[in-house]
């Protein structure tokens, strides 16, 4: 009698455990596609790096099965990846041939889920993996800060660690709050007009882009909001130089650019036509110096925000030490120190 009651309890426990081990769960990816996975995924392939960063802050690194062989500026990142995933160097690398992912390598690994960057459901890699291999694919396409928080929640669902995902989201929001609590009271008139300079110089962040949000949260206002042209709504419009001169931004913020420094914009001969822009006249041209630490399309988005805020509103954030914040942030998110990435 006692034994049968004991067996019944074990059976009940097993029944309750089954959904936790492999219950089908529906997700909606960034393209609005429904993705059905068995939660928690045990073998995830990341062909996009920003989601990998998010995943490492939440999930067990053992469940990262393979990584795309297309990490940009890997020399800036690999020490960090090795620190948060001791087996990082041993992970299978998925190569690309003519832009198409190596389906054979992927098939040989047999992942539960592939996470990749795609701007449309017609993306060739997305279609090839789902249709040819029948493997679920989660498409990442970040266009706003809110998308970043959603990514955190979805990585929590994929890894079966929703609680940790909620913690990560709260950590990110607390760092963002540190900035926005100081900037939200600034009226639009008092905000410096900021021109975001992508590497194509006259290409910028439009009114409906993630950087438009970030600039506003940092205490500025995207100068594209003053351009009376429908192109200003584009994600990446190209502005005529004459228009930029008439918009007259107070601050120019450059994305990491290997060919240009702020000094080139301020006094370079190629930029002689820019000399009457307020930002240039007042020497307020800044650059994202490290595209890894201050990548706005990654969970380090709050660090990018702080970088922007410190330069856009120097009076408000004069006492802010970015290195200290980075150390605290990496500690809370990944349990490592910055710099050096030594374990806490």
């Amino acid at each position, binding site marked *: 009698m006692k034994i049968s009651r004991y067996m019944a309890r074990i059976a009940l426990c097993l029944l309750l455990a089954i959904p936790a081990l492999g219950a089908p769960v529906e997700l909606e990816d960034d393209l609005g596609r429904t993705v059905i996975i068995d939660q928690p995924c045990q073998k995830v392939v990341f062909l996009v790096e920003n989601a990998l960063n998010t995943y490492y802050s939440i999930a067990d690194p053992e469940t990262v099965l393979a990584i795309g062989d297309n990490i940009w500026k890997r020399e800036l990142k690999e020490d960090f990846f090795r620190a948060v995933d001791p087996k990082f160097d041993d992970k299978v690398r998925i190569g690309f041939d003519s832009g198409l992912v190596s389906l054979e390598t992927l098939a040989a690994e047999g992942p539960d889920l592939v996470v990749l960057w795609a701007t449309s459901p017609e993306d060739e890699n997305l279609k090839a993996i789902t249709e040819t291999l029948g493997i679920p694919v989660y498409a990442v396409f970040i266009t706003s800060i809110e998308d970043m928080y959603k990514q955190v929640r979805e990585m929590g669902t994929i890894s079966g660690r929703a609680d940790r995902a909620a913690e990560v989201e709260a950590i990110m929001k607390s760092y963002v709050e540190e900035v926005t609590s100081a900037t939200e009271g600034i009226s639009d008139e008092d905000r410096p007009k900021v021109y975001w300079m992508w*590497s194509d110089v*006259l290409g910028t962040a439009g009114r409906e882009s993630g950087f438009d949000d970030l600039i506003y949260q940092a205490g500025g206002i995207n100068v594209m909001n003053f351009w009376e042209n429908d192109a200003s709504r584009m994600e990446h419009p190209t502005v*005529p130089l*004459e228009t930029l*001169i*008439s918009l007259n931004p107070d601050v120019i913020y450059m994305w990491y650019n*290997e060919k240009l420094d702020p000094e080139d914009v301020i006094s370079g001969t190629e930029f*002689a*036509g820019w000399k*009457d822009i307020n930002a240039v006249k007042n020497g307020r041209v800044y650059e994202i110096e490290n595209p890894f630490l201050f990548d706005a399309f990654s969970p380090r988005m709050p660090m990018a925000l702080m970088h922007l805020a410190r330069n856009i509103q120097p009076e408000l954030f004069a006492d802010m030490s970015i290195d200290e914040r980075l150390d605290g942030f990496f500690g809370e998110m990944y349990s490592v120190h910055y710099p050096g990435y030594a374990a806490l």
Partner: protein
Amino acid sequence: MNIDYGRRKLDAVHNYSFIGKRVLVLLFLLMPIPAFLISMTIGTFPITTGEIAGVIVSRIGMDMGHPSVYETVIFQVRLPRVLLSMMVGSALSASGAAFQGIFRNPLVDPYILGLSSGAAFGAALSLGVVSWIPVQLSAFIFSLLAVAVACSMARTEGRTPVVSLVLSGVIVSAVFSSLLAIVQIAVDERALQSIVYWMMGSMNTASWSKLESSFPLALLGCLGILSLRWRLNVLALGDEEARSVGMDPERYKGIFVISAALASSSAVAVAGIIGLLGLIVPHILRMIFGPDHRTLIPLSITFGATFMVLVDDLARAALGFEVPVGIITTLIGAPFFAYLLRRTRAGGWE
């Protein structure tokens, strides 16, 4: 009586058409002047023609009290851009006309010897891989390298047959296109975007320094073509005919290829790949004035400059945002060209 009357009438018609043609030639030669003046008044910065005149007067010495930004817009933004557009238009058109003459082929453009693929590869290499090399320099070096490789491939037993040269150009173009594809696959999304934008051609980063670096070579190339232009008429008849009148076709082909490559490489390096211009401008002129290179080359230089600067006016001002100029040259040039083609027998080659 009737014969005399008929002859007098024919003479009158001939004189009229001769005078009319001279006037038309003069008109085309002077066309860049009004195009330049119109272009200087077009832009997205709010400044009136009167204010522009005032700023220019101020430059001469009579201070009219305009804000300094006006002077910057006119002399640092608009003027270098207008001049760069004109230079690019002249260089590509003159090169196109020269290449069409050398190859005796109406389908030839300045990119026939792989120049554009070489330039695109050079630019892509700089934009996506070897960032310490300036884009302009890299594009220039690789465009000339492509032409040099095509010419050396085609040269056999001291001669460079036209067919071999065209085939070599196709092969070199294919090789550089493949190399470009490899770079495009390897680079990140933002670098890829820059490469694609560069390949569409644009004047939006025009500056005096760009003009200073490209103008001497473009001028040298154009002067080379211009000064020897009558020899293109002989080359256009074929190698045997050229030899029969005592001309060394290999020597002059070499001079024209080098001159045209220098001019078009300088243009491509600063403006990216601008399609169709070097093909349609010489054809339009050939349809109007005939195939004589003595007239065709100087007109290609002036009409090319006019065409390019007006197209760039559209690119920078029509929609209020920058549209790659290469797109507009194709969208405007192609239907205009089709119209002229339908009205002209054999496209002006007869």
